[in-house]
């Protein structure tokens, strides 16, 4: 843990984050949903001004979405992964568009792939998919193979080549 990251952690004590050190220059902070914006702003003021990535993880067993903000500082190369957990059935969160303007597109993408609504960011048009009629695709309970077989007819082989490939893959029959 580089020294500038450890003293950044000291200033963040007031938000009581759960700290987990992944690497010598990478620290994961899980924070309660209502404190995320404050943590992000303090980190930005401490020099972690570059929002590398904003994404979402779908923990389907405990029916929660985990929003992940990865901040990077050009000064000392330290990375903070700020994560927070929100409910999966009615996913709501506040936008960080004012802090990082590029987050508008990240949120639009997360809305399209996970269905998380971001209050304050009204530009929620579909970004990558066109005329999408099924549930958000990156959720764990969406099965792409079944969707692909239903919508896009494949090539019928006399011998089911794909199944055979799977068997070879599992080592039941040698290739």
């Amino acid at each position, binding site marked *: 843990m580089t020294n500038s990251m450890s003293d950044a952690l000291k200033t963040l004590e007031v938000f009581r984050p759960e700290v987990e050190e992944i690497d010598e220059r990478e620290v994961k902070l899980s924070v309660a949903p209502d404190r995320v914006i404050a943590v992000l702003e303090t980190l930005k003021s401490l020099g972690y001004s570059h929002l590398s*990535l904003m994404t979402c993880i779908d923990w389907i067993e405990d029916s929660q979405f985990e929003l992940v903000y*990865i901040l990077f500082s050009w000064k000392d190369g330290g990375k903070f992964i700020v994560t927070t957990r929100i409910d999966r059935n009615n996913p709501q969160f506040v936008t960080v568009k004012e802090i990082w303007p590029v987050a508008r597109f990240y949120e639009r993408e997360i809305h399209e792939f996970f269905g998380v609504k971001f209050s304050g960011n009204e530009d929620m048009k579909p970004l990558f998919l066109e005329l999408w009629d099924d549930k958000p695709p990156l959720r764990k309970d969406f099965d792409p193979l079944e969707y692909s077989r239903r919508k896009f007819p494949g090539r019928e082989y006399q011998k089911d080549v794909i199944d055979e490939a799977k068997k070879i893959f599992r080592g039941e029959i040698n290739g």
Partner: protein
Amino acid sequence: MGETKLFFGPNHPGMHGNFSVHMYVEGDIVKKARPVPGFLHRGFEKLMERRYWYSNISLIPRICVPEPDINEICYAMAIEKIAKVEVPERAQWIRMIVLELARIANHIWTVGGIGGPLGLYTASHWGVADRDRILDIFEALSGARVYHMYIIPGGVRKNMTPKIEEMIWKTLDYIESRLPDYENLIFKNRIVHSRLRGRLILTREQAVEMGVTGVGLRATGVEYDIRKVDPYLFYDRVEFEVPTATDGDAFSRVYLKFKEIPQSIKIIRQALEKMPQADRVNVPIGRGNGLRRIVPKGMAYAHVESTRGEYGFFVVSDGKNKPYRVAVRGASYPQGLYGIEKYLPGTRIEDVPIWLATMDVCAPEIDR
């Protein structure tokens, strides 16, 4: 003059890859511009959750087509961070050589590629032809020209034979001899100066606010390079400079890429000398046998300085034999989506393909 609606659409020769910009144009000035990505969307993040850790290696280089090696290195480094695996030293040096060779290949291609929007087709012909020399090295090394699948979690797939090292030395000398020709053809050409200098200027505040990384940021005067700021592999054991410029316009972005080529050549030469001889170049990760390795629970983010900027993988594993979630940070995501909407209005039609070329908007890594 009324506004005409133009689809600078997916089928347009000035467009790199499959991407579209819908814009309103008045005369030659762009009034409103909207990026339309998604033409190359294959849902990688979903597909990767359905394949084993090792069998993802064949899927991953196909994310970013012009430069596949950075995908492999990010995936490999992220997994090694989670599984806390120590990669053999020779494998790390070979990885550095492969990454720098890929950087030279891509830089020559984009420096030559600026000839497309400008009309200087001779430069693009030279650029692509010289890039082929490096693809021959990759072919000798990994058997494939573009998708090498060479860097795997735990090291590299095959050892680098002395014959390939000899080939690398010869190719580096050849490319170094070609650089003055590019200098005279492109960067001493007065019309190129008049077309690129002072166009599409991006100040440092705009770049930092937009999250631009790579050449777009270094053209505004700051020496921000992940190989220096957050060194991975052995970048702290080789010395090289990071060229920067001050006026942040289209010309300095292309010229910086051109000046990075000699630096990469210097890195490769130092790496080739410092590389120890060893025959063990990869280490199995996690436990389990054959393809079905199991990576312990955890999450990690590994990022790398690609030719277009910061490129990173965020990998989450829940202790099973398949990745739980893999998120890809495309290097040209900010300048491709947000940059077009904010900075293209006000420019001319001729500058739109130049923005896409100098900002290196690469469609497959935006759509994933």
